[in-house]
């Protein structure tokens, strides 16, 4: 089983220390091996120089051999002639180095360990009648190497320990902005969505994280605001008919009226019931749509035919206002859609156009393909247009450009929201072009038929 430390800080520190330990160990081993090889090599060099000196003295001034020890510092050597010892230093004798020489001709350079455990490096040179052996005690070299090893073995854990501590502190410092962000984020609730995380450096990783988080907060804030607005609007819209019913009923009960007046009161209350019914109906349609529970029954529909049908059914309204309502449909503009849903959306658009266009105005419905070949339906009117400030929210539920007038016109404030849903449910989009005082153009663009 793998043990995974929980905090990023610990994990970072351990990784750091692990890598560092590996590097230090490898480096130290390298140094140790290098130093040992270097020192051994130097020792061998010194040995061969000493052998050469002894050999030269033996050849030139054999009597001088006795001076080599005190004057030249060559303390361990042995010279033999015809198997007889000609000279050996005191050190050679004391160290019992005679035993180091093999009986027969062995290797010319080797290491030998005495019975006391001292190690010597021995080199020999021999001629036809003589044999010279020189030795150097390796003890000091070995002591140096041991000291080096001890320093390293003691030093590595210390260094790793320091690295752990340093790494832990460093990781803590690097990660501290995350802790701050988490604390801050924890304090943000639905009521304080306006708060933002501090961004110290928008370029670095933490800055980017905070920026992304802040963007999410903004979007969340927007949708909360929209929801609050919707709740407020919905309660207003629902309460208005209820209030009307209640006051009409209460006032009627306070006096005794004749039959006709009672009928009038009841009729008035039923009108409000009707309004309330349509409101609840529309809200349910939208709610169901938003929770994705509406099933579309798609088939290939000729949009020109659909637009003509819708225009014909609403034509009487345009005629009442002496408006001209024309349909200009290109042939064979087809889309795969649910005709009932799309029709509902188009009816709302056209009804709006008729409602807001003044008498004798013109409304044009155009069915054609866009430059990209997508099927589209345009509804263009000569109404007052929609000011830029309202364009973004015009499709929101209950949103009204001119509160009073729209309500007088009998609108529920849900028509465009339903249209948007009807279009988006088909994977399409709705575009709005408007010029104040000149008119508006709504364009339903549906995805091209995918076979």
């Amino acid at each position, binding site marked *: 089983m793998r043990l995974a430390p929980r905090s990023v800080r610990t994990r970072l520190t351990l990784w750091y220390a692990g890598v560092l330990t590996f590097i230090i160990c490898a480096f130290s081993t390298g140094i140790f091996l290098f130093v040992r090889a270097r020192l051994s090599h130097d020792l061998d060099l010194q040995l061969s120089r000493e052998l050469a000196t002894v050999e030269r003295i033996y050849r030139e001034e054999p009597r001088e051999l006795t001076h080599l020890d005190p004057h030249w510092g060559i303390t361990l050597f042995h010279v033999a002639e015809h198997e007889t010892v000609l000279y050996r230093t005191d050190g050679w004798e004391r160290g019992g180095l005679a035993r180091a020489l093999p009986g027969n001709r062995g290797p010319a350079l080797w290491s030998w360990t005495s019975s006391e455990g001292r190690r010597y490096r021995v080199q020999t040179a021999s001629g036809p009648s003589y044999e010279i052996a020189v030795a150097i005690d390796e003890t000091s070299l070995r002591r140096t190497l041991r000291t080096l090893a001890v320093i390293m073995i003691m030093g590595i854990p210390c260094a790793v320990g320091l690295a752990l501590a340093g790494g832990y502190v460093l990781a803590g410092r690097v990660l501290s902005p995350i802790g701050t962000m988490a604390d801050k984020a924890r304090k943000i609730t639905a009521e304080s969505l306006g708060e933002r995380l501090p961004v110290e450096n928008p370029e670095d990783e933490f800055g980017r994280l905070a920026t992304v988080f802040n963007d999410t907060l903004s979007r969340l804030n927007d949708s909360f605001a929209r929801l609050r607005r919707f709740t407020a609007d919905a309660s207003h819209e629902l309460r208005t008919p209820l209030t009307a019913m209640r006051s009409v009923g209460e006032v009627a009960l306070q006096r005794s009226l004749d039959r006709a007046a009672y009928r009038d009161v009841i*009729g008035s209350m039923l009108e409000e019931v009707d309004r309330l019914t349509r409101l609840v109906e529309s809200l349910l349609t939208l709610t169901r749509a938003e929770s994705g529970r509406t099933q579309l029954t798609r088939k290939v529909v000729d949009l020109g035919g659909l637009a003509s049908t819708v225009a014909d059914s609403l034509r009487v309204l345009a005629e009442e206002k002496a408006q001209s309502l024309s349909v200009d449909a290109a042939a064979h503009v087809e889309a795969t859609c649910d005709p009932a849903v799309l029709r509902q959306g188009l009816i709302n658009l056209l009804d709006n156009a008729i409602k807001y266009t003044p008498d004798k105005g013109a409304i044009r419905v155009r069915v054609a393909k866009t430059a990209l070949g997508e099927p589209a339906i345009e509804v263009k009117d000569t109404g007052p247009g929609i000011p830029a400030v309202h364009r973004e929210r015009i499709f929101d539920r209950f949103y009204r450009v001119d509160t009073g007038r729209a309500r007088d016109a009998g609108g529920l404030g849900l028509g465009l929201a*339903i249209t948007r849903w009807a279009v988006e449910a088909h994977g399409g989009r709705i575009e709005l072009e408007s010029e104040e005082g000149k008119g508006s153009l709504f364009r339903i663009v549906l995805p091209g038929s995918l076979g």
Partner: protein
Amino acid sequence: MRILVVEDDKKVARALREGLQAEHYDVRVASTGEEGFFLVNHEVFDLVLLDLMLPRRDGVEVLTTLRKRGLQTPVLILTAKDTVDDRVQGLDLGADDYLVKPFAFPELVARIRALLRRGRMDQVLKLQLDDLEMDLLTRRVTRRGLTLDLTAKEFELLEYLLRHQGRVASREMLARDVWQVAARATPLDNVIDVSIARLRRKIDDPFEKKLLHTLRGVGFMLGGKHE
């Protein structure tokens, strides 16, 4: 004609009983599924009005029992659920029609009449009210012998009103049956009002006796007693 109303809401049940009695139906009310279940098992009804969400015994259960016994009594479901699935389920179980709450009373009466009449559809070629006559073959409308010039939609509208003469037609009924728009969340009401106004201009305005009446908050009625 005996009608069984299975409805748990007391106010709705009372309104249904009184309204249907005024239409000269003999009405029994069951306020629980249990009671409805008992009544359909022991008595004979010409039609059952069934609320689907009932205490104790579900409306669905009452319906399935009824059909298992092989009774062909027409069943009209009243439901507050209006998703397609619920409707399909109700019709699959053997219901003959459904109405989504809140419904308009004139519409309920129209549906009941249609269900009770079912199977013996009268093939009329001429519709008539007072001195207003409609010939369905030649598609000619006359009043007091004078030919009236109606658009196709106005003709359909008048035909519907004539077929329902003496009874109220709500805007919802007109939207669904004349304009073929099922969704109620459409601004079609204005269209209906304008069309009615135009029709009135043609069939009523030139004549002294008015035939087409508006019942505020309820709908429209051709002929009949109007106060």
